[in-house]
């Protein structure tokens, strides 16, 4: 990623302005619609937080270019959650104290769990950007919050289902995940999806217990030899970011490509190929929340894609770009339609509206405010013919609604 100087300078200047005159935010309040964006902009989560910020800013730019909301401009007020719940709460309280009622927040579940109980008091409507944890629409369900993200049973249940359809011959799967308890949801969802489809087709499948890897480790060779030793022809890999790339890199010398017929990555999509270039595994599936090339007939998707290329010069935006764009879009659309910023009016509007976003029609299930968009899976890999050393081989889409878990707002899903 290149540092965008113009962008950097404007944020810095705005920051210094705010420092010099604490009242500046209040002064600007007048006739703008202000949306607070709380995301992770320092520490290890910053990579994803930056995507969310970029996507949200693209949305604001596009909406303002189209005339704003009922004639008012949208203003995005961005805060860092400092990678902690109390950081998120500090930012949230600061912005609500300044009178902001519309929020988008995302990256880590715990940070959302920190702010959700505060929505009522400040009469806030919130978009949970890209959040996948079950708790958010189940035991921690809050009627003022909408999950514009893909729940684990949905995207990884669908994933398992897809793999069972594409590779009915594979009867043994190995799984690998970071030693992070929350990720167990993902491996469970995948194996449930896989099993369900197999049973339907009258076949059986053996799914091995996931091999655990320390989070943020540097050496995965022991686990690699464990996995390869299992003899399973299919692998589902739930490592994140740098860990996943290190894993593929270290596994390459062990002949990863030859040992497995199908390699599935959970959700790292192009981060792997962008880092590994010509040494990307020969073929790798990944789930993605937004892939412009798979949404050819969607004009919004195209525009967001173009805006991102203009902003960062990167043709393969992370899925968070699309999701965060649509989060802002959904809020703006609801404010426009409801003509109000009160949650009491916004919530029913968001529940009934289905604005056209980069991901398609943005619609939420009424009972628990879960999102059921299309599920996109991509297969990509090494390609010597392509200049960057890799290309996308195929994409597959499934309707998310079929895999969305039961709605149990307010209580835990069993």
């Amino acid at each position, binding site marked *: *990623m*290149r*540092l965008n100087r113009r962008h950097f300078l404007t944020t810095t200047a705005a920051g210094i302005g705010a420092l010099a005159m604490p009242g500046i935010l209040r002064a600007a309040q007048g006739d703008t619609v202000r949306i607070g964006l709380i995301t992770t902009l320092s*520490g*290890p989560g*910053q*990579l994803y937080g*930056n995507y969310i910020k970029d996507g949200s800013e693209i949305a604001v730019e596009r909406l303002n270019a189209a005339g704003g909301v009922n004639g008012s401009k949208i203003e995005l007020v961005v805060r860092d959650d400092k990678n902690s719940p109390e950081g998120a709460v500090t930012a949230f309280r600061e912005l609500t104290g300044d009178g902001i009622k519309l929020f988008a927040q995302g990256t880590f579940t715990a940070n959302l769990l920190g702010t959700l109980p505060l929505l009522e008091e400040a009469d806030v409507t919130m978009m949970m950007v890209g959040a996948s944890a079950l708790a958010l629409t189940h035991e921690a369900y809050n009627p003022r919050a909408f999950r514009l993200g893909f729940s684990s049973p949905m995207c990884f249940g669908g994933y398992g289902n897809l793999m069972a359809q594409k590779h009915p011959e594979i009867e043994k799967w190995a799984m690998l995940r970071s*030693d992070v308890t929350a990720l167990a949801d993902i491996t469970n969802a995948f194996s449930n999806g896989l099993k369900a489809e197999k049973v339907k087709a009258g076949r059986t499948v053996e799914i091995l217990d996931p*091999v*655990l*890897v*320390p989070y*943020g*480790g*540097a*050496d995965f*060779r*022991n*686990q690699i*030899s*464990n996995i390869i030793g299992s003899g399973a022809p299919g692998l589902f890999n739930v490592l994140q*970011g*740098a*860990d996943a*790339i*290190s894993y593929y*890199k*270290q596994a*390459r*010398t*062990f*002949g990863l490509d030859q040992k497995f017929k199908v390699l599935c990555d959970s959700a790292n999509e192009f*981060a792997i190929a*962008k*880092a*590994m*270039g*010509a*040494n990307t595994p020969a073929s790798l599936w990944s789930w993605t929340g937004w892939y412009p090339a798979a949404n050819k007939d969607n004009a919004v998707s195209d525009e967001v894609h173009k805006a991102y290329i203009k902003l960062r010069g990167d043709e393969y935006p992370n899925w968070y770009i699309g999701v965060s764009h649509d989060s802002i879009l959904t809020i703006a659309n609801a404010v426009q339609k409801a003509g109000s910023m009160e949650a009491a009016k916004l919530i029913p509007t968001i529940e009934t509206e289905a604005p056209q976003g980069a991901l398609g029609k943005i619609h939420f299930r009424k009972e628990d405010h879960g999102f059921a968009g299309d599920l996109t899976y991509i297969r990509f890999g090494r390609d010597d013919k392509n200049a960057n050393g890799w290309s996308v081989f195929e994409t597959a889409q499934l309707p998310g609604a079929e895999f969305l878990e039961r709605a149990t707002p307010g209580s835990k899903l069993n």
Partner: protein
Amino acid sequence: MFTLVNGLTTGMAVFLVAAGLTLVFGIMRILNFAHGAFFMIGAYVASSLVGSAPRSVLALIAAAVVAALVVGVLGIVVQRFILRRIQHVDEHYMLIATFAVMLVCVGFVKLVWGLEFLSVDPPPGIDAGVEIAGLFIPSFSLFIIASGIVVFLVLDFVIHRAWAGKMITAIARDGWMAELLGINVPAGIMAAVGGSFALAGLAGGLLLPNQTLSPALGDSFLLLAFITVVIGGLGNVRGAFIAAILLGVIDGLNTMFLPAYPGVVVYFAMVAFLLLWPNGILGESRL
């Protein structure tokens, strides 16, 4: 058996990082929080030189050496303009200063190289594996093990045999006396400090193909390196070498016998070691 080879690989990787850390302690009596960040900068510098696919093993080593030089110079700058100024105050301020340097380094890396992951492949020649006695071993593992042993032998020779080491030892033990003997103390310290920091850069370069580059890279090794340095005895390179191997093997056995709790046994081992040998297995060394 395979676990042992892997353990050795991990151990040597950790030793490469820990060597500089323990030397800096031996010379300046500080636990350098910025060591992981220097390691990371070394890796990023080397990656900028070789690109994502180094042409040969030599190219990788050359890049590592350049990275070592860059980080060494950076280290001297930090020592000259920051650490030396507060040397006489309270050692704990050195701690806070290295912590601050770490933060600045991480911020700097984010600005220069961005947040996206970078990956460098093992160069041809060490990107495959070899079979030894029916055991498949990645040749890059052998490269890491060899690098670790070479770095250890060179350091051990320099410290215990060569004139330079004796000079540094003299300075570390008694700066005043060393000056009396006609040793240029500031220059000696400068060289030793530069050398110790350079080791972080060298490790960054050599381990480049081992893992992924991200601004969090420094953290992944720092804690293990700290543990190694402490278990081995602060400032004691031989101790660090042994401790690194022990930790690597313990971690390997951990994944073999207790796969549900990866990376946990190392902490228990450390607590046990510290209670059994409170001064490290080979004792503290003032170089």
